C-alpha cells in the first residue's frame, strides 16, 4: 500500500506520556486563566468567585507543565538552553520555531499567572490584602487579567501549532490542530471550574452561565474536530485503527455527545448532571490529546 503523504517517511520523536499529560495540564492552565479573565471582566460578582478558582488552578498547572517538559528532555539539566545560548549567554529566541516561542510563552505565563494566583490567595485571606489589587476591577488587576488571558490562549494553542510545524503524519497534515487545542482547552477548563465551583459551594446561579459556555464550546469543539478530520484527506486512514476507535468512543461519544446531552437534558441525572458532564468532558479532553499524540507516534 502506498503512503498517503510524504509525512509517512519520517521518524517518531517519542513525545509520549509526559507530553500528552503536558498538553492536558498546559491546556487547563491556559484555559482556566483565560476563562477566569472573561469571568472577572464580564461576569457577575458570584461568577467572580469562579474566576478566583481559575487563578488558583492556572499557576500550579503551569508550574507542573514546566516540570513535565523539563523531565521529558533527554538532557533535562540543559533546559535553560531554550532561553540562553549556552556558549555566549545571549538570548535564544526564534519566532518561527513554536518550541522556542512556546518556551518563552510558558515562562511569561508562569510569571503573570503567579500574580493572578497571589491575588486569588489574597481574596481568600491567605495572602496580604494589598495583593488583591492584582485582580480586576483594579487597573493593575485588569492588566494582569488581560495579559495573562492572552498568554493563556497562546499556551493553550501553540502546542497544536508545534505539532503542525513538524513533518509527522496527522500532526503536519493539517493546520487545524492549534484551533482544536484552543477550543478543547476552553471546554476542559470550564468543566474543571464547574467541578471546583460545586466543591466550593458557589450557588447554582453562579454556575449556570459557565455551564452554558461549556455547552457552546463543546459544539464548537465538535465542529472543529470534524473539520480537523476532514482536512486530513488521504491521511484519514490512519484512524482506521484502535486509535480511531478510541477517538470515536472516548472523544466524540464520551467527551462531546454525552456531556452535551447531559447539559441539554439536565434532569437525566438530577443534580449530578452537570458534574457528570464535566467529568466526561475532562476525560474526553485527555483522550483527544492522547490519540493525537500516539496515533502519529505509531505510524
Amino acid at each position, binding site marked *: 500500500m502506498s*503512503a498517503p503523504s*510524504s*509525512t*509517512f*517517511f*519520517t*521518524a*517518531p*520523536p*517519542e*513525545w509520549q506520556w509526559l507530553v500528552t499529560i503536558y498538553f492536558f495540564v498546559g491546556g487547563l492552565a491556559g484555559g482556566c486563566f*483565560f476563562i477566569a479573565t472573561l469571568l472577572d471582566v*464580564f*461576569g*457577575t460578582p*458570584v461568577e467572580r468567585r469562579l474566576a478566583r478558582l481559575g487563578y488558583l488552578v492556572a499557576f500550579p498547572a503551569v508550574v507542573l507543565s514546566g516540570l513535565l517538559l523539563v523531565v521529558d*528532555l*533527554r*538532557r*533535562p539539566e*540543559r*533546559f535553560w*538552553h*531554550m532561553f540562553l*545560548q*549556552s556558549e555566549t549567554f545571549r538570548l*535564544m529566541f*526564534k519566532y518561527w*520555531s*513554536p*518550541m*522556542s516561542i512556546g*518556551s518563552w510563552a510558558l515562562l511569561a505565563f508562569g510569571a503573570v499567572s503567579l500574580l493572578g494566583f497571589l491575588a486569588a490567595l489574597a481574596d481568600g485571606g491567605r495572602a496580604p490584602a494589598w495583593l488583591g489589587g492584582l485582580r480586576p476591577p483594579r487597573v493593575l488587576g485588569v492588566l494582569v487579567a488581560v495579559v495573562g488571558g492572552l498568554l493563556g*490562549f497562546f499556551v*493553550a*494553542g501553540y502546542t*497544536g*501549532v*508545534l505539532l*503542525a*510545524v*513538524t*513533518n509527522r503524519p496527522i*500532526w*503536519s497534515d493539517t*493546520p487545524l490542530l*492549534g*484551533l482544536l*487545542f484552543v*477550543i478543547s482547552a*476552553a471546554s476542559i477548563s470550564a468543566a474543571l471550574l464547574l467541578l471546583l465551583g460545586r466543591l466550593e459551594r458557589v*450557588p447554582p446561579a*453562579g454556575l449556570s*452561565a*459557565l455551564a452554558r*459556555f461549556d455547552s*457552546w*464550546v463543546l459544539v*464548537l469543539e465538535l465542529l*472543529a474536530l470534524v473539520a480537523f478530520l476532514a482536512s486530513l484527506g488521504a491521511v484519514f486512514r490512519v484512524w482506521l485503527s484502535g486509535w480511531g476507535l478510541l477517538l470515536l468512543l472516548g472523544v466524540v461519544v464520551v467527551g462531546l455527545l454525552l456531556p452535551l446531552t447531559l447539559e441539554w437534558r439536565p434532569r437525566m441525572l438530577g443534580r449530578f448532571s452537570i458534574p457528570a458532564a464535566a467529568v466526561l468532558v475532562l476525560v474526553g479532553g485527555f483522550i483527544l490529546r492522547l490519540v493525537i499524540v500516539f496515533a502519529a507516534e505509531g505510524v
Partner: protein
Amino acid sequence: MPEPMGFFTDTTVCIGCKACEVACKEWNQLPATNGGRNTLSGDSYDNTRRLDGIHWRHVKFVEQFGPDRRGGRWLLMSDVCKHCVQAGCLEVCPTGAIIRTEFDTVVIQSDVCNGCRDCIAACPFGVIEINPVSGTAQKCTLCYDRLQAGLEPACSKACPTDSITFGPVSRLRDMAARRVQTLHARGENGAYLYGADERMLGGLNAFFLLVDAPETYGLPPAPKLPTRHLRSGSWFSVLGAALVGIVGVVNFRNRGMAGAARTRAEEEPRP
C-alpha cells in the same frame, strides 16, 4: 569561504558492502547497537534497518524478488543525512544547537542540544534520532571535523566502488547529470536524480541517483519544510481563541440592568 560541499550517492554501483557504515561508526566513535549483541533483522541482509542516532550511514537493501525467487533484483542505497539547503531540523531547533557550517552542511552541536526532539519530528526524511549515550539528537555531520582538516568524509573515503562521491555540490551535479545520460544511453531509462536541484528543499547537498520510485527506497516523494503550517496554523489558533472569547463574552456579560438586578437578587442572603 569554501564552496558548498556534499555527497553524490550513485545507487547503481553500490554493492552493499557496508564499508561506509563501518567507516562512519569508527571515525565518529558511534556505539554498537545493544552493546554489540547480535541484532539480525531476520528477513533481509539489511540488519541496520534505518538511520538513527548511532547509525549515520545506512545501506538500505531493497530486495525485489517474486515468491519463487527467480529473477528480480537488489536495489542498494547508502542513505545519509541530505544536508538540505532549506533544512527543517535547523528551522525548528529551539536551542540553536543545529547550525549551518561554512561548507553549507547541517551539523548538530552535541554540547548544545538538550534532547527536546523537535528536529526528529521536523526532519522530512526521518534521519535524526537520539544517541542513547549522549542523550542528544545526532546525525551525519558530513565529517565536519575531517572537512576542517582538509580531509574527505570517512564514508566516501572508504567506499570501494565510488558509489559515494564527495565534493563541491556544483561539480557533483555535473557529474551526476552525465552519469544519468550514460545510463539512459545504456538502456537504464529509469535512472534519475533525487534532490539534485533547487526544487526539493532548495536542493539536497547529499543527493542520489535512483532507478525506482523514491518510496521504494524509503524516501518521501515530496518532502516539505515543517514551517509550511506555521502561518496558517497560527491564524486558525487565533480564530479558535476569538470564537472562545466571543462565546465567553456573550455568556458572561451582565445583560443590562435586568442582569444586574437579577445578580443583586441572587446576592441577597436568603431568609
